[in-house]
């Protein structure tokens, strides 16, 4: 073990019980003290398993076979187990809901210290320090159940920090958060790393946000391929998965590869104006017949207004992205469209027909709604059975059931138990279970939660294919890149009202929050995604040939 390494894996091989292939084989790397390490890779490639090895949850909780040697802060987590590692490794989990023991902020922060027998005065001081470090002092007496996702995740980080661990391990802490909340959490992590020299190991899908803070990246490609480990730039150059900016840089052969917009700007001198917007828009369905019509829709939960006079018309074949902060009414709007909630005022018409007296089950025959949490949906023994269940419920013939699995690339998983799948895969199975009813309208609520870049791209491709077949889609999403890839139109909600409604290119250009990375770099409405640049020809981007960084 070298002098500065705080985490060292040598030839580690681990396989879950009854698994045919190991999650990783002969994995070796070492992480220096006080550094910021990013663990990336497609979903299901073993990121969580790796992180859980650091404090002994794997193999103590999971069983399985482990070979090789792991050293964390001079200890052996395999023999000590999580309780022996708890004072040197702080752990934050993906789901902010499922890691709290006590519902009160201060008590929750003190929980781990109480277990360790830390004296009362020391506890008081450390709780104060942690409250200040994470700027959550104002929340100290609140109930955790009344906090927002971002606040909860900061409390979870605080709870892990009170034992003053040497290492903080976070397993996709922002995957359930909206962009603003995610930003908050990540900024605080960076501060902890810089100001306190805390060693941070973070698994994360939103590479564009954290890549710049990372000292090294561990890329786990999964499927038995060899992992990559090194400086962010080196790993990104060889990894299959990369944020849009890096993909663009690769496509244009920029060297050294830019990781931030600031670095990317040095390569761009301008864009050619010769090609018009029409070239990339293709056939844009503007004139289909109106399918969804909302007139003055109001909705309130127990007197708290969630929708305030929504007027909206969506035409056949459109893909509309509903965007806006958490609590701006996106989910409420979608639920009103399928009759799970009923507007208190105003009317909703689907296919020209008022849905006031229609049952949800009837509406759902033509309108598919995929809820935020796929776990609420999945109950059958196999993926195939999930699809069959939907078709039987709607009284559809069962022969064509499996086509939908083929469209979504789930053929190989047809016999799998849905709950064993990764989050991204579960999302797709839930989508398959809804699409199975062959709806004419598809409503998606946060479909990219827990999906990696490749899965997102696959989803975007699927939605566009379905659009060709005449499917109308409304998706509520925080994911700017997804919206940029698929949507023709963006509707921005704020406090239950429509703030902006317009074509995607117009809304997303030059926006501080809603501009996708490529657009931030090139600042031209013709370019939202890497695909746009490729379609228009790489030569439209004028480069300065790469200045030194």
């Amino acid at each position, binding site marked *: 073990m070298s002098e500065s390494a705080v985490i060292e894996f040598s030839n580690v091989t681990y396989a879950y019980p009854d698994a045919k292939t190991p999650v990783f084989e002969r994995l070796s790397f070492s992480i220096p003290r006080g550094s910021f390490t990013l663990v990336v890779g497609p979903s299901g490639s073993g990121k969580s398993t790796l992180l859980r090895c650091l*404090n002994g*949850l794997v193999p*103590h*909780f999971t069983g399985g076979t482990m070979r090789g040697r792991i050293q964390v802060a001079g200890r052996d987590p395999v023999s000590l187990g*999580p*309780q022996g*590692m*708890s*004072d040197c490794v*702080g*752990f934050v*989990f993906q*789901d902010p*809901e*499922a*890691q*709290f*023991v*006590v*519902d*009160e902020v201060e*008590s929750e922060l*003190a*929980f*781990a*210290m*109480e*277990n*360790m*027998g*830390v004296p*009362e005065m020391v*506890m008081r001081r450390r709780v104060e320090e942690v409250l200040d470090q994470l700027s959550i002092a104002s929340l100290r*007496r609140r*109930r955790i*159940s*009344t906090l927002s996702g971002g606040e909860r995740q900061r409390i979870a980080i605080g709870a*892990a920090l009170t*034992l003053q661990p040497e290492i903080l391990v976070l397993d996709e802490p922002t995957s359930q958060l909206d962009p603003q909340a995610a930003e908050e959490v990540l900024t605080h992590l960076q501060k902890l790393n810089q100001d306190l020299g805390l060693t941070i190991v973070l698994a994360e899908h939103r590479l564009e946000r954290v890549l710049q803070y990372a000292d090294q990246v561990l890329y786990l490609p999964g499927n038995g391929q060899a992992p990559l480990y090194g400086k962010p730039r080196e790993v990104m150059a060889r990894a299959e998965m990369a944020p849009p900016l890096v993909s663009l840089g690769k496509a244009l052969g920029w060297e050294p590869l830019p990781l931030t917009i600031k670095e990317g700007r040095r390569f761009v001198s301008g864009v050619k104006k010769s090609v018009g917007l029409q070239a990339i828009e293709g056939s844009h369905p503007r004139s289909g017949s109106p399918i969804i019509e909302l007139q003055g829709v109001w909705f309130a939960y127990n007197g708290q207004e969630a929708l305030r006079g929504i007027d909206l018309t969506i035409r056949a074949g459109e893909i509309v992205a509903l965007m806006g902060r958490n609590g701006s009414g996106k989910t409420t709007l979608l639920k009103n469209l*399928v009759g*799970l909630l009923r507007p208190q005022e105003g009317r909703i018409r689907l296919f020209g027909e008022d849905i006031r007296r229609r049952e*949800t*089950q009837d509406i*759902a*025959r033509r309108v*598919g*709604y995929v*809820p935020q*949490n796929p*776990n*609420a*949906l*999945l*109950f059958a023994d196999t993926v195939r059975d999930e699809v069959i*269940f939907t078709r039987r*419920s*709607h009284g559809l013939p069962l022969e064509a059931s499996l086509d939908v699995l083929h469209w979504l690339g789930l053929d190989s998983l047809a016999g799998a138990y849905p*709950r064993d799948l990764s989050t991204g895969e579960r999302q797709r199975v839930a989508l398959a*279970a809804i699409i199975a*009813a062959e709806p004419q309208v598809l409503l998606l609520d946060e479909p990219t939660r827990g999906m990696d870049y490749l899965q997102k791209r696959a989803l975007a491709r699927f939605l566009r294919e379905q659009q060709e077949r005449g499917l109308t889609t409304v998706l509520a999403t925080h994911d700017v890149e997804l919206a940029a890839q698929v949507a023709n139109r963006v509707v921005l909600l704020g406090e239950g009202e429509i703030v902006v409604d317009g074509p995607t290119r117009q809304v997303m250009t030059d926006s501080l929050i809603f501009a996708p990375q490529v657009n931030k770099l090139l600042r031209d409405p013709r370019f939202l995604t890497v695909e746009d640049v490729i379609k228009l020809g790489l030569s439209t981007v004028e480069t300065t040939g790469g200045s030194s960084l």
Partner: protein
Amino acid sequence: MYHSLTWLLWLVAAVVPALATRNPLYLIILLLTVTFVYMALGTQSPLAVSWGLFLRAGLLLWVTTFIFDTLTAHYGATVLFSLPRRWPVIGGRITLEAAVFGATSGLALVALLLVFATFNALVDHYRLLRLLPSSLYQAGVVASIAMTFVPSTAASLRDIREAQAVRGHRFRGLRDLLPLFVPLVTSGLERAIQLAEAMEARGFSRVVSSARTSSRRHKLIISVAMLACCMGLFGYSYWRPGRWLALALLAVGLTLLLFTLHRMGRGSGRTRYRRELWHRRDTIVGLASGVVLATFLALLVLWPEVLAYPVYPRVVWPPFEPLVGLALFPLIAPALVAGYRPVRRLP
């Protein structure tokens, strides 16, 4: 606001009169006092909604008791009217005495419910759990987790029902429960495993393993103490001549139990964050509750006929002893002295 111990004392002091008397005049005074305390302090509490639920449940209970007793007792001197004898159960004379008995018993139940409702709305459950001796710490953690699990399970059931409805699922028979039940159970189990991991990662099992080492001697003492408590209770209820001996046995058993739990707690190597502060107002409310408690216990033992209200065979207007009515007033103390709290709790 107040120390959890203060609230516990207040609860006991309010429960004893509710159990001890059937006299509607005292019960009404008790009801008004408790309601006043809730109105003064409890309306902003996160559990304030539950008070209304308790009240509604209480009223329902009162109506049920009243109707049931009136129609089924058939005993007493003042006959109001008669129902045909052939009718089962309710056939026979319907008396004023039975009606009054039903109304007063119902009132006692309502009073008891409202006392608990007010306590429930005002006390901080998490702090209350912290009063448990360290040796019962695990039980406390289990209880506090259960408190967060109930609302989250309700929320996930709602999500599941919605999700299955949009798949065209209709409820027609028991078989159709499966699509609701399976995700609920599996989600619950998954959450439980995640929580277990999170607790493990924060060193919870250290406490468990150190508590396990508590000696055999402690277990023996606890068994003996529990036995003494049981014998004491049993003796008090069924062996009139030895009542005082039985009470003494109960006291010894309880003391032994608490002492042992305390001793075991010291060995657990666990510390506590932020003990609750005991303010002067806690002393005042504590004393006030003590006065009520002492008065009613003394009345119950020495002069029980003051609290009784026999309606049979012939009903009379309930007697009113001003001093007994006055003895209930100290229960209002939490509402009166809360005014000078030094720091106001943030909502």
